[in-house]
């Protein structure tokens, strides 16, 4: 937006933090847009007159964000929309690589476990975003928090694997037709979400997660090497993608 470029870095950060705070508090998107735009205009005019941001929002951005938040209506329906989208996206990302291996069977415990882990992950993510938006000065803290949120599902999934070994529950098998239908739905979901979010991130993740395994499986390399190589490609690729997006983001900010 051309208006935003004129704002000082401090004001811009505040507007961004406010947006994240309100969003993770479950506020209505349209209302969020309205108030952030209004404040942007205000900050811009105030800055032109040489006023400091403290003169506008007071000494505690957190208190000010809470004040604004209190006057806004909650929009749980929109929240549900995001939760459903994240759940579907996570499942599709999980299912497609396994489909390529040609087997798909889950125990009831696994299915329930996956859903519970996804919900825990979503809750943690929203909560940490809300927390992060009010501690805007400590990048180290932010990084620590986000990485622990990212590690939580990994630990939980490992726990689930052991749990699944310890308790026997009925197993749901997917036959050939069910495999094809599930695969098609999963691919459509990924494509749909990518269009909706106007982002390549899911498609890139999907390719990085599924292709290395698939192609390495066709070679005669030993299983162990396959595991290491595919892991390197997947996580290296994700790292590269994040780095690349970060560069792009910085460029567009200047």
């Amino acid at each position, binding site marked *: 937006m051309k208006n935003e470029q004129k704002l000082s870095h401090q004001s811009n950060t505040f507007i961004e933090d406010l947006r994240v705070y309100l969003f993770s508090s479950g506020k209505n998107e349209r209302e969020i847009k309205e108030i952030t735009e209004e404040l942007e*205009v205000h900050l811009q*005019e105030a800055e032109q007159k040489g006023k400091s941001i403290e003169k506008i*929002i007071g000494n505690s951005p957190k208190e000010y964000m809470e004040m604004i938040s209190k006057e806004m209506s909650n929009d749980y329906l929109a929240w549900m929309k995001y939760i459903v989208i994240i759940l579907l996206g996570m499942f599709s990302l999980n299912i497609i690589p396994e489909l390529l291996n040609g087997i798909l069977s889950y125990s009831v415990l696994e299915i329930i476990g996956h859903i519970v882990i996804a919900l825990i992950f979503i809750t943690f993510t929203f909560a940490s975003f809300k927390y992060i938006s009010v501690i805007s000065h400590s990048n180290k803290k932010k990084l620590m928090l986000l990485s622990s949120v990212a590690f939580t599902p990994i630990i939980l999934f490992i726990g689930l694997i052991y749990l699944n070994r310890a308790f026997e529950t009925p197993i749901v098998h997917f036959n050939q037709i069910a495999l094809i239908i599930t695969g098609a739905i999963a691919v459509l979901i990924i494509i749909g979400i990518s269009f909706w979010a106007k982002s390549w991130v899911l498609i890139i993740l999907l390719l990085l997660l599924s292709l290395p395994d698939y192609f390495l499986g066709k070679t005669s390399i030993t299983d162990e090497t396959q595991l290491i190589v595919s892991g390197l490609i997947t996580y290296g690729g994700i790292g590269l993608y994040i780095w690349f997006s970060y560069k792009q983001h910085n460029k567009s900010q200047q």
Partner: protein
Amino acid sequence: MSTTQMLKGIIDGCLLAIIKNKETYGYEMAEKLEEYGFDSFSEGTIYPLLMRMQKEKLVSSTLKKSTAGPRRKYYSLTEKGELELENFMKRWEQLQSNVNNVLHNESQNEGDGTIEK
């Protein structure tokens, strides 16, 4: 109660009066309040107030393009808002005269008739 807390209810009424006089946007209101001497509060405080007033249908708003570029949100008073302003003015008159009376009488009668042990 902090000054800011006490000010909020009063600023509500002042905003209604400013908006009634002329369709206006946030920054302009803040400037006006400052001109009138309200300079200790943070300007942004007016937005949560405006949001509530809009929810209570005391004011309505439209977005307008300005010469400067960004779209400004202009507020105007609804009928309900005008009524609220009248009420505020009455309440304020009453409060003001009460406080004045207390301050005037009590500081004059200092020492006599007051409770002493």
